[in-house]
């Protein structure tokens, strides 16, 4: 079932949580709402669920498969909602937690006890917690609890699955495992799903499409590859992974900044006017380190710290002006250079992006 929201705004007193947001999620898609805290992503999710009411506006609408559900209560929208802190019913067993949505149905729609039992058993198998139905939430680990919360949401056979930072409270290892499991589950069930997260890695890894949000607005919508490789704004590139920011300007189609020029530049959607002050964005792996100048423009910098533990060697450098540069070198290149802390090297960029800064008077 597709979801479309149109012109949704939400204010809490004088605080604007959502500012005229429109978005379409296709049938069977898994979309991640990604953004820092306060960007409005959770508010948008809660409005789609019906847990929050958007500001009254004649153009605003929420469609589930073409039907306007804006006036429907949360219980009538048939959404499965998974909370960050699980929100399991503490006084009920795992089995009864999952069965809850079936047991509260009006009598004529309520399945028989046998049907409920079969359904819950099937869901327990799906979340790989067979045999733990009699346990209570307090007897489960965080990862297990979140899987129970997911099964509880799936029990009502929701048309839409909404997950609010489902792995936010878990440690890194469990998170990674659950993330992969959720993706496999989605490929199996094909329930239209929206996942809220502030973890860019999670969003890029799990989602079919990523919606990057900032300050109550949507910055960019695209596939993980699109938003990562073709960020539409400074915010998006800044938020999706580490980035070095240089100040400079454009001269004859080249970015010029304290001796560093990049010819192969990928501009953002705004065409950069010449000779205006700009920010130049370079990802750590797009920088190169040389021992001596070889004709191409480069910035001299001091090697401050080296961390070779990982797929890349992470090199932190300091320029003469006192700025920090972060470079990710392939391990082979790092070993070939034989870098030592304290030595001065030259940093050049293989690739950079330019966005016109906001016009400020």
């Amino acid at each position: 079932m597709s979801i479309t929201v149109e012109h949704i705004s939400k204010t809490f007193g004088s605080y604007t949580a959502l500012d005229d947001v429109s978005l379409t999620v296709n049938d069977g898609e898994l979309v991640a709402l990604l953004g820092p805290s306060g960007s409005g992503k959770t508010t948008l999710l809660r409005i789609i669920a019906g847990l929050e009411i958007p500001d009254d506006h004649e153009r605003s609408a929420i469609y589930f498969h073409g039907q306007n559900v804006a006036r429907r209560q949360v219980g009538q929208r048939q959404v499965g909602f998974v909370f960050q802190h699980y929100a399991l019913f503490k006084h009920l067993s795992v089995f009864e937690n999952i069965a809850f949505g079936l047991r509260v149905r009006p009598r004529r729609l309520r399945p028989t006890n046998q049907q409920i039992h079969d359904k819950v058993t099937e869901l327990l198998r799906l979340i790989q917690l067979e045999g733990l139905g009699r346990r209570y939430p307090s007897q489960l680990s965080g990862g297990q609890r979140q899987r129970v919360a997911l099964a509880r949401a799936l029990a009502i056979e929701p048309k839409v699955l909404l997950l609010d930072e489902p792995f936010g409270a878990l440690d890194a290892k469990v998170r990674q495992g659950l993330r992969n499991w959720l993706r496999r589950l989605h490929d199996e069930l094909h329930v239209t799903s929206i996942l809220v997260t502030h973890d860019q890695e999670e969003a890029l890894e799990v989602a079919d499409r990523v919606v990057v949000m900032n300050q109550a607005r949507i910055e960019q919508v695209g596939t993980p590859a699109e938003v990562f490789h073709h960020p539409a704004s400074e915010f998006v590139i800044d938020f999706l992974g580490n980035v070095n920011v240089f100040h400079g300007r454009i001269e004859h189609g080249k970015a010029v900044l304290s001796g560093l020029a990049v010819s192969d530049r990928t501009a953002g959607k705004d065409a950069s006017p010449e000779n205006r002050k700009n920010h130049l964005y370079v990802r750590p792996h797009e920088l190169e380190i040389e021992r001596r100048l070889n004709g191409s423009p480069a910035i001299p910098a001091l090697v401050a710290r080296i961390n070779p533990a990982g797929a890349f060697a992470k090199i932190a450098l300091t320029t003469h002006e006192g700025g920090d540069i972060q470079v990710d070198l392939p391990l082979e290149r790092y070993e070939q250079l034989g870098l030592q802390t304290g030595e001065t090297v030259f940093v050049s960029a293989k690739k950079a992006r330019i966005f016109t800064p906001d016009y400020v008077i």
Partner: protein
Amino acid sequence: MAATAKSRRATSDPLWLRIVLIGLSVGFISVLLVLPLAVVFAEAFRAGVGTYFTSLNNPAAWRAIRVTLLAAGISVPLNLVFGVIASWAIAKFEFRGKSILITLIDLPFAVSPVISGLIYVLLFGLQGLFGKALAAYNIEIIFAVPGIVLATVFVTFPFVARELIPLMQEQGDEEEQAALSLGASGLQTFWRVTLPNIKWGLLYGVILCNARAMGEFGAVSVVAGHRSGTNTVPLYVEVLYNGWNAPAAFTMASILALLGLVTLAAKTFLEWKVQQQLRADELTDVSPATALEPATAEV
């Protein structure tokens, strides 16, 4: 060994000080709390068990017990319902005037019980605001049982709400939201999710409320007007004592004291239960991971 000896010296007071402090507090409690309680029972049974039951087996005593039970039987359920509604509203919703409501709930704690009684005399007494109208319909409130019930309701008003508000605030409303999203109605959510979560705190509040309802003296004394038909147990104790009937006074007092002891035991048990539940809640509530800030390097 040396290390333990040293650390012990660093963290605890000398033995003599501990003995003095513990001795003082135990002595204080013995003289002021335990001894009087023991005296109540000793005096009640001084003339033998037979006399004890003879004093009990007396129409005036039974009337007092009946009035007390009636007052508690009406005010406790009333304040239970009110307390749940008020704390639900305060803990789960944001609205204008919330702090005023909280202050108003505390009002009976703040004013002297005598004043609470006087308020009702001023309202419903013969010279009071509604006095004439009530007299015209021959309705007796002041110096009658309805007045006692009203005064008891007023005095015991805050107990349940005061107990539930912090508990419900601590628990938040995520479970209720989950229940609603699963299709439960408001009433189903209350019975199946909210009530089980607050049951121990609620019972605790009810027990405190009941103890106060049965033991209240000041407010009830003002509205009861010292008439034999409108005595509660505490009032009757005073009447007996002033009438030089010490054995009977102590017999009635022993009933109240027993009620106090039972309340105390129940309170201790429930406090332990509530603590246990809060601890379970904490285990379920893992603090959220801090937002990941993308690192930025600037030149």
